[in-house]
């Protein structure tokens, strides 16, 4: 990736707390920190892969950037605009520039709407096109995502999983956005269909100069699509860097264990093999110090008390671990 491209999205110390309510009066009894001071940036035309186990907060990051959930604190700068300071109406004006494709293709489509109405909705909602022009545009969008015009009058439940996801993508790119949050867009699909959808996304990125935040737990998919990746653990980004750097030279013990867990036919693998046991701790009671210390094979005394600072490993590559000091 060349580095002279302008930054499209800058996320600084993003925090999202969910209140926990208890008892008859729904009193706020505490809070769950789903996203803990997450910082990253994405350049124009780039794909940032966001990886982590389920429940680590990666989906919440995507939703918070789009303000589908309101972040608790932090800064989101999109194309020069401070999104979190905008009024809902001002935010709505910018929404045409940023769209989302969600994990479950069927529940992302209104079961009572035909494919034509679903793909036309962005235009209708913004009063952009009407009548024949609208129909032509919708047909063109279907073609862009590899669907035939005869699908126009079908309903979501009549399509296959891959076709449904194509419709989701067609709707997402309808208003020619600059930025897409792809929230596990392929994890509900068969492997062969996954590849088609990934290729489609790559083609669209090239043709429409799209910028992606690609959220996934699938490391092989992430490696295939991303320019840079960020690894999340329990609400925090533990390592971020260019994809090849991170895969060849993982710095954080958690990244190392993750990469070691990729199933691969690699008989003489050179990688160090780490195995971790147990579950990710509950976000309700995150461990003090480094969040990973409860499962880290290299845990030290400081890890249990002090939160590690970010350490620079290489160009654009950094990780948060005491061992890197």
């Amino acid at each position, binding site marked *: 990736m060349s580095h002279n491209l302008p930054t499209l999205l800058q996320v600084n110390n993003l925090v999202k707390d969910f209140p926990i309510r208890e008892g008859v009066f729904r009193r706020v009894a505490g809070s769950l920190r789903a996203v803990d001071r997450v910082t990253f940036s994405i350049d124009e035309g780039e794909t940032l892969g966001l990886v982590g186990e389920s429940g680590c907060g990666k989906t919440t990051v995507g*939703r918070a950037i*789009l303000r*589908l959930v309101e972040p608790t604190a932090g800064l989101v700068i999109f194309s020069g605009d401070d999104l979190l300071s905008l009024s809902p109406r001002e935010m*709505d*004006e910018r*929404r*045409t520039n*940023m*769209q*989302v494709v*969600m*994990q*479950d293709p069927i*529940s*992302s*489509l*209104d*079961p*009572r*709407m*035909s494919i034509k109405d679903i793909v036309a*909705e*962005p235009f*209708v*909602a*913004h009063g952009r096109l009407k009548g024949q022009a609208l129909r032509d545009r919708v047909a063109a969008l279907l073609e862009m995502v590899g669907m035939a015009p005869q699908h126009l*009058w*079908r*309903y979501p439940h*009549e399509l296959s999983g891959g076709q449904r996801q194509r419709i*989701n993508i067609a*709707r997402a790119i309808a*208003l020619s956005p600059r930025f897409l949050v792809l929230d596990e867009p392929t994890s509900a699909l068969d492997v062969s269909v996954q590849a088609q959808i990934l290729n489609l996304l790559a083609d669209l990125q090239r043709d429409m100069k799209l910028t992606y935040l690609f959220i996934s737990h699938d490391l092989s998919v992430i490696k295939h699509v991303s320019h840079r990746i960020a690894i999340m653990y329990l609400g925090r980004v533990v390592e971020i860097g260019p994809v090849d750097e991170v895969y060849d030279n993982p710095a954080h013990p958690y990244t190392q264990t993750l990469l070691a867990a990729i199933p691969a036919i690699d008989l003489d693998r050179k990688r160090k093999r780490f195995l971790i046991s147990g579950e990710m701790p509950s976000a309700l009671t995150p461990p003090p110090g480094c969040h990973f210390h409860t499962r880290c094979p290299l845990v030290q005394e400081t890890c249990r008390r002090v939160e590690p600072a970010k350490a620079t490993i290489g160009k654009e590559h950094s990780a948060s671990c005491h061992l890197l000091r």
Partner: protein
Amino acid sequence: MRLIEVLIRRRSSLNSFRDTHAHQLRELRFILHQLRRSPLSLAGIGIILTLVCLAVFAPYIAPYPGDAFYDMHPDKKLLAPQKGHWLGTDDFGRDMLSRIVFGTRLSLMIGIYVTGLAVMVGVPLGAIAGLSGGRLDEVIMRVTDIFLSFPPLVLAMAISAALGPNLINAIIAISVTWWPWYTRIVRGQTLSLREQPFIEVARALAVSKRRIVFRHLIPNSLAPVTVQASLDVGYAILWTAALSFVGLGAKPPVAEWGLMIAIGRRYLPDSWWYATSPGLAIMITVLGFNLLGDGLRDVLDPRLRR
């Protein structure tokens, strides 16, 4: 030549209608197929269709159409059921059968108006409450609680009495007590729907709240509303008859079933047919809508499907 062209054009527009609405047609056919397998709901549909025919063709079916309005025949007063007056006559010598047939018109209209008004008010309010949550939700739901905490018939009587007793006001009064049920049904539906990804995507597209409510939330919560509405048409008829019975609805000489029972009651037990025939008419009508509602519930409830 022209005629053929017109016919061809009509045929092709029919075909394109078939294409664009293939899904709805299939759905409709499926519903009809399901209904056909349930004899009770078929009976309900049969009753309702018969009533609709009676209502539409009342002037042709009723033997003495004028008797439903201002005709009087003092010489034929309170005749027992007999040839020529199959359900007897009332205290003004009017043919009961004719008045009941014309009463069908009124009753169906009442049922549809009351249910329609209740749906039009209750459904959007429920969707708005469920979608917005927070304070607006609280306000709407507490208001519906206030309405639901009154005995509905008492409330309807009070409203009708306050507005001035006539049939239109009775319809309004009953609608006012009725909408909260729809608000609750739709709010419940909306609460589960609004967590659905397609609603979140719509928000990401900056689709207006109004459009989310009317294009996404309401169409997706209509199945239970349809069931409730088909049951309610029957109850609305029953209740309006009740209001008329206590003198807070239709006024003589309107041929309204509840009013006919109220007057006929005075001639019991000697002229038993006077109060009995409109009573049976009400019973059969309510039964018809109940059977249809039950049948629709079985068909539209996805948990019971297949």
